[in-house]
């Protein structure tokens, strides 16, 4: 079956200018396929510099991969026909982090709801359009009489973000990519917005890619999770499995670091404290050969020569409490562990079969 949207062996480096030898590796050989049936919620979790936003932008075709491909219904995003491009823009919708920046302050909020109706000819009459708008607002728990006709600044951040969710309901996409949709919203409204996302998945059958730094909300609304660390997959699989029994040392550190809203559940042990040190979670910077070619091109050639990788060893090795000599030299492949879960860690080289990065989706959908 052809996936709705697929990243295949995607790497992205951001390079300096013509003579800049240093590139930043934002995403390293990432593969993942998203199907629209059955509709699933997949969380992509990572801290700053993990490559999660780069991934979102790649999936939307806002930037192009340095190597590898992003495929929509089997065809490369870069070479879509006009008609396919139109279909893509309707099938895949985005919800951004900042509900303040997506609005044009000079238009009433009605505008963001009317535009897709006009653009995709979703309604045959003005009345039908109104009805559609009212219905979609209701689906996210907003009353149209309190929302329509207002300017963005007259609404709260939570309301604005819910209108973006309503917009997604309106267009009926097959996939929604939500990049940190609740990180700028107050706690009391966060649950409501997440619940309406969950509703889109359950009631309207939309697949959702939920990109976040917040493990707790990822755990609450998703079926599967991919934990990214410095541009690569650290651990992925069934969300209950990964959160309740993390296997990758980074995931373990991450989960132990989440402050639980319970005074009787103390923050994890002191051992983690030492392991964590003050290492920045920066993306990996790599020196590639000099010369006249832009670094990005050199990096592309280098990656092809090295089986898709630009790095040596595990990117977590410097912080890892279980580090072994091999971790400094070998890039750990994804090892398949207990069924629906993989971890990119050499600790498990005897326990699980090494997978090619493209096999990640097979494990995740199992």
């Amino acid at each position, binding site marked *: 079956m052809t996936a709705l949207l697929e990243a295949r062996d995607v790497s992205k480096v951001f390079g300096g200018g013509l003579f800049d030898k240093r590139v930043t590796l934002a995403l390293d050989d990432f593969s993942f396929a998203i199907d629209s049936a059955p509709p699933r919620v997949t969380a992509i979790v990572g*801290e700053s510099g993990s490559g999660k936003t780069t991934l979102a932008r790649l999936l939307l075709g806002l930037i192009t991969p340095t190597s590898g491909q992003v495929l929509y219904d089997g065809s490369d995003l870069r070479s879509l026909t006009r008609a396919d491009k139109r279909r893509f823009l309707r099938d895949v919708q985005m919800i951004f982090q900042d509900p303040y920046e997506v609005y044009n302050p000079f238009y009433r909020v009605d505008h963001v709801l009317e535009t897709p109706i006009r653009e995709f000819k979703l309604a045959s009459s003005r009345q039908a359009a109104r009805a559609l708008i009212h219905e979609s607002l209701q689906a996210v728990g907003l009353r149209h009489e309190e929302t329509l006709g207002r300017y963005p600044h007259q609404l709260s951040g939570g309301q604005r973000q819910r209108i973006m969710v309503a917009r997604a309901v309106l267009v009926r996409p097959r996939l929604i990519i939500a990049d940190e949709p609740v990180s700028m919203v*107050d*706690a009391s*409204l966060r649950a409501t917005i997440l619940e309406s996302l969950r509703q889109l998945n359950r009631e309207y059958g939309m697949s959702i890619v939920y990109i976040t*730094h917040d493990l707790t909300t990822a755990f*609450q609304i998703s079926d599967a999770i991919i934990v990214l660390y410095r541009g690569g997959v650290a651990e992925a699989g069934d969300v209950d499995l990964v959160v309740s029994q993390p296997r990758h040392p980074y995931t373990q550190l991450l989960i132990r670091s989440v*402050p639980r809203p319970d*005074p009787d559940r103390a923050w994890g042990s002191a051992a983690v404290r030492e392991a964590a040190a003050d*290492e920045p979670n920066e993306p990996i910077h790599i020196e590639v050969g000099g010369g006249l070619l832009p670094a990005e091109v050199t990096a592309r050639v280098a990656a092809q020569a090295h089986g898709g990788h630009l790095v040596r060893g595990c990117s977590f090795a410097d912080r890892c409490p279980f580090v072994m000599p091999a971790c400094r030299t070998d890039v750990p492949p994804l090892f398949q562990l207990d069924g629906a879960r993989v971890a990119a860690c050499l600790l498990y080289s005897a326990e699980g079969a090494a997978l090619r990065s493209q096999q990640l989706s097979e494990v995740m959908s199992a």
Partner: protein
Amino acid sequence: MASELLRVDDLRVWYHTRRGAVKAVDGVTFGLLPAERFGLVGESGSGKSTVALALMRLIRPPGNIEGGSVQLDGVSLLELPEEQMRSLRLASIALVAQGAMNSLNPVVRVRQQILDAMRDHGMKLSKQAARAHVLSLLEQVGLHSDVADRFPHELSGGMKQRVCIAIAICLRPKVILADEPTSALDVVVQRQVMDTLLRVQEQLGASLLLVGHDMGLMAQFASRLGVMYAGRLVEVSPVRELFAAPRHPYAKLLIASLPSLEEKGAFRGIPGLPPSLLERPSGCAFHPRCPFAMPRCALDDPRLQEVSPNTWVACHLYDRDQQQVAGTARVAQA
């Protein structure tokens, strides 16, 4: 209480705008015990950061401290001339501000920035002693002495935030205010910075006021919590009691809105929207969203009262046995 180190009484801070006065802090009363960790929580716009700024007397126009009093160790901060207040800042009461790491000067080395802070606040040390003090401060916040010679851009966010903590404690203040000290940091780094802050506070024996919205952080961190809503404290309780048995309906809903990493689906949002501070709802500001609202909630402003030892709540649900007392108090006020 006599033993309180910091006493805030009926603090009011308004921002004067063209559309009227925004009552960001509208009658806040609480005390801070010596060496205590007190958490002040609330949503954006609840006034929690304004309280911290007001305690430092750093409110800028159009904001203005309209009234109330702040007593620090017997000194009335709001009545001090600016010059004396200036010498108290850092020496007696220090602030680690939100995004403080961005307040470091990008073109000055860390060592010099710490030295400047000490000198500006009247610390007179020989050159050698000052340099030694900088190194011991860095050590206290868990940074290597190399950091002294680096520029801020050479440090990670967590390291910069530790430098800010080092600056905040350089004159050994009695009270440390930390306003969302880790809001821009990743969780792993956040934990390290919080651990550092706690260790430093313990070493100094200072009281700590942590301002924030992250209930998880508060649960791990504070011994007592004050919950703010629309510019007022609605509940002040020991942290365990607040999480186990919140009294004020807003606190109850807030606790219930917290997602868990152990159990799925056990969280729900608070209905309705945060109030506008320009048009504060009549009576109790929470009544339009409150599932337990009674007719009198729209009329009468509930006062913060002690409903059981050390637990203070501003809600009419808890009036019943104290109605008479509250009534006489109101009459006496009128």
